[in-house]
């Protein structure tokens, strides 16, 4: 018993952080309809700020106050004012994408601001030297302080929300801000307060979380987010009490489970990260209300669905014969350029860019075409990569065979992932795939039969049909990857402009009408999921071969949201978005690395790239077509204007 308690107490600081963020998630979701994926990143920002303040000699308690009472509420108000107020009436997908943008954007932004130096651990905010023994169990001061702070904060908040007026106004503001205003309540203020309070909670969680780690890195805070998501899910993102209970449960399990396992056990590193996933899965499968978060709240919506929103996509007819010829010529041209003209130093970069573009295309398929939000695309890419690497290097399969096998392994992963997608759409699916990615990070890729823990495994670059693909700057290999990219691009285009695209556009706008017209949604979704995973796997396999060695960070789960956000930013409705994203994602850091460090060269280049490429997610609600299409539209308008002017002057 004592042993159990002391393990459990070790998990308490985590429990508190989970509970705080979970409560923040529930609060903003109930008040504003936004599920904020950005809270983990906000906690990271707060944690880093706290550590930085402490290291500059500010007393730790004062740092905590500055971060949670001054900076965080201001940041929350800014978020409300600059971002979420503008998308109050947007659909759930827009809200999800916007908050995913925050999740991707913030950590990189923080890294840019603080510079590339590693941020080390900070002292606990209170009672850092205090120690006591309770019923024979030693408890440290920081744990007590964390616990007391959390309980006090949560109690104050609950009392505030208990007052009927606040609670009702909160809920009414989501349903109809106009109506609330007609009753003389400033609904804008209500929403702003919700953002300020939840931002404070996230910051507090971050400050309490920071001392648990020797160095601050975003992925630890990703774990915080995932835990909080699962905790919030326990109460179907609507109950504060259950959210807190969920947080405590997770934290305690996290303390207890490793305590009873031998560090050499397979389960040691894998069990804890998999708890959020299974908690979420069980909730999603058992809780009806949770499953249908996305559907209209109107109970009548099944019998008499509301009018479908006007779609934004304008479909063009499939390419004619001449169009296809032009396309093929373009590809042949590209391949020739790749063979002859690309300078030696760019061969490696372009190879990686082309394989990344294939991975990006998998997002175009799944999100742009089928409207499914998956944060686990990088896992499928990883499956393809590890499959290819393992089979070719350790089992000496030929390059072609192992690529095919890797692709098939990934598509099987997609098949599994499509099972929940038959019932879930939008937000619940995004949540589940987020937790799944974390699970894969800890359970699948480090396993010895897949990768080899944290160390890297080599990837062979064999030859086929006597053509040599070896060497880091193999032009032959570049040609091969470009050819695969061209094939994938064509396939995706055929789907977008063919019967599938038409069917899915219809289903996206009114699923009931589509089903009543005979559209087989389940089968289509399953096939698209498998295809998309296969494409990601192919890209991953090619990427692995290009890299020449593989280690777990290459397919870190945190990259999944980055993929999604970048493709959506660039435009998920057509293949161009993914192609440009692929090139930009690889070329931009290279270009930045060449630039003088004053302009962001050197160590910050990948952070800057992510910031630049993800910033468009914030305009998604206004411009869901993406930057590329948006600019194209603007250019067309400008072109017309110029033509008109010329016509006038004549």
């Amino acid at each position, binding site marked *: 018993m004592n042993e159990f308690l002391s393990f459990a107490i070790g998990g308490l600081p985590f429990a508190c952080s989970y509970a705080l963020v979970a409560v923040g998630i529930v609060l903003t979701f109930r008040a504003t309809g936004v599920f904020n994926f950005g809270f983990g990143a906000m906690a990271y920002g707060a944690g880093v700020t706290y550590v930085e303040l402490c290291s500059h000699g500010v007393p730790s308690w004062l740092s905590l106050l500055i971060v949670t009472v001054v900076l965080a509420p201001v940041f929350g108000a800014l978020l409300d004012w600059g971002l979420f107020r503008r998308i109050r009436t947007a659909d759930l997908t827009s809200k999800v994408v916007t908050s995913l943008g925050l999740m991707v954007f913030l950590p990189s932004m923080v890294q840019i601001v603080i510079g590339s130096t590693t941020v080390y651990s900070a002292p606990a905010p209170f009672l850092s030297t205090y120690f006591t023994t309770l019923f024979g169990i030693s408890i440290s001061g920081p744990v007590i302080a964390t616990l007391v702070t959390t309980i006090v904060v949560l109690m104050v908040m609950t009392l505030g929300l208990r007052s009927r007026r606040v609670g009702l106004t909160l809920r009414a503001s989501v349903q109809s801000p106009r109506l609330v205003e007609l009753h003389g309540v400033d609904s804008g203020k209500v929403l702003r307060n919700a953002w300020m309070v939840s931002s404070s909670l996230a910051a507090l969680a971050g400050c309490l979380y920071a001392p648990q780690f020797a160095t601050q890195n975003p992925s630890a805070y990703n774990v915080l987010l995932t835990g909080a998501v699962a905790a919030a899910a326990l109460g179907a993102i609507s109950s504060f009490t259950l959210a807190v209970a969920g947080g405590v449960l997770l934290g305690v399990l996290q303390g207890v489970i490793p305590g009873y396992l031998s560090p050499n056990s397979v389960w040691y590193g894998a069990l804890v990260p998999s708890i959020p996933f299974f908690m979420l899965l069980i909730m999603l499968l058992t809780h009806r209300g949770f499953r249908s978060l996305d559907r209209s709240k109107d*109970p009548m919506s*099944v*019998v*008499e*669905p*509301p*009018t*479908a*929103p*006007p*779609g*934004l*996509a*304008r*479909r063009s*007819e*499939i390419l004619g014969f001449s169009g296809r010829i032009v396309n093929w010529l373009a590809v042949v041209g590209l391949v020739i350029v790749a063979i002859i003209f690309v300078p030696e130093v760019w061969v490696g970069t372009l190879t990686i860019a082309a394989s990344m573009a294939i991975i990006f295309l998998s997002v175009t398929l799944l999100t742009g075409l089928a409207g499914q939000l998956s944060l686990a695309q990088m896992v499928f890419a990883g499956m393809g990569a590890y499959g290819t690497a393992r089979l070719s290097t350790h089992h000496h399969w030929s390059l072609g065979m192992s690529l095919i096998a890797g692709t098939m392994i990934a598509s099987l992963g997609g098949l599994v992932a499509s099972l929940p997608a038959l019932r879930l759409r939008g937000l619940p699916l995004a949540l589940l795939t987020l937790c799944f990615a974390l699970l894969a990070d800890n359970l699948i890729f480090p396993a010895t039969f897949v990768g080899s823990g944290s160390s890297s495994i080599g990837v062979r670059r064999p030859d086929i049909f006597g053509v040599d693909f070896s060497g880091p700057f193999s032009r032959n290999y570049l040609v091969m990857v470009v050819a695969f990219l061209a094939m994938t691009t064509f*396939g995706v285009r*055929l*789907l977008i*402009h*063919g*019967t*599938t*695209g*038409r*069917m899915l*556009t*219809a289903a996206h*706008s*009114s699923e*009931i*009408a*589509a*089903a*009543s*017209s*005979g*559209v*087989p*949604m*389940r*089968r*289509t979704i399953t*096939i*698209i999921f498998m*295809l998309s995973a296969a494409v990601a796997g192919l890209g991953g396999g090619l990427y692995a071969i290009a890299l020449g060695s593989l280690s777990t960070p290459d397919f870190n789960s945190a990259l999944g949201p980055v993929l999604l956000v970048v493709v959506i930013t660039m435009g998920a409705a057509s293949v161009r978005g993914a192609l440009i994203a692929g090139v930009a994602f690889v070329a931009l850091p290279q270009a930045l690395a060449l630039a003088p460090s004053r302009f962001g060269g050197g160590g910050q280049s990948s952070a800057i790239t992510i910031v630049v490429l993800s910033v468009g997610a914030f305009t998604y609600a206004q411009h869901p077509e993406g930057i590329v299409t948006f600019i194209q539209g603007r250019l067309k308008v400008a072109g017309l204007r110029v033509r008109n002017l010329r016509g006038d002057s004549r």
Partner: protein
Amino acid sequence: MTVLLEVRGVRKRFGSQVVVDSVDLEVSAGEAVGLIGSNGAGKSTLFSIIAGTISADDGSIFLEGRKLPNRADERARRGIARTFQIVQLFGGLSVLDHLLVALQAHNGEAGVFRDLRGNGATTVPEMTLCMETLELCGIAKLAHAQTTMLSLGQRRTVELARALVARPKLLLTDEPSSGLDESESLRLAHILNSVRRSTGVAVVIVEHDLATVAAVAERVVALDAGRVIANGTFDEVIANVDVRRSWLGEASA
């Protein structure tokens, strides 16, 4: 005449409220049945149950003597088409695209494999059938229009055309003339009749506008609080005491 649709003892409750209560309903091939009843009588719910978008708690439904599959899309492919009380069109698709979706999905000729083989373009027979249907509904001129630009009457007609393009055996149409003026309602009734004549589709029409019911339906079924209270010709049902009391709002005659 052969029985097309057979509904046996279908019940549905929402919470404690029984919305559809042991309903039996038979529709012969090619027949036109009017379904009337006050607001909340359970007409739309019955439609959704037959079409498969919601599941009944009890009872069974047969089409041509065979039990229907569970899912709405499978039922659609077996020949049940419907329109909605609140118009459900596909945003972002042209009128022609609406028909193509329904036609290709119904024939099982849409999907990933067709597209990847490079056959994603619309074939000539598909195009012909769509244009024929649009012609039949009198909106051939709108084929390439975006549906957001259309009037309510035109949108209802597009919905009707979408439902009819795959030549279903049974058409369920939910208040097709609600929100339309008299001449538009009449035009829609006219379209329904001519479609019925040329394709032989059986129609069940839910309608509050008695003129439209009289113009379309050969037989009328009255529903009250989820129960069938009358079944017969238009005049018989309208003269029925229970119907007059429950629906036409007369004190006991």
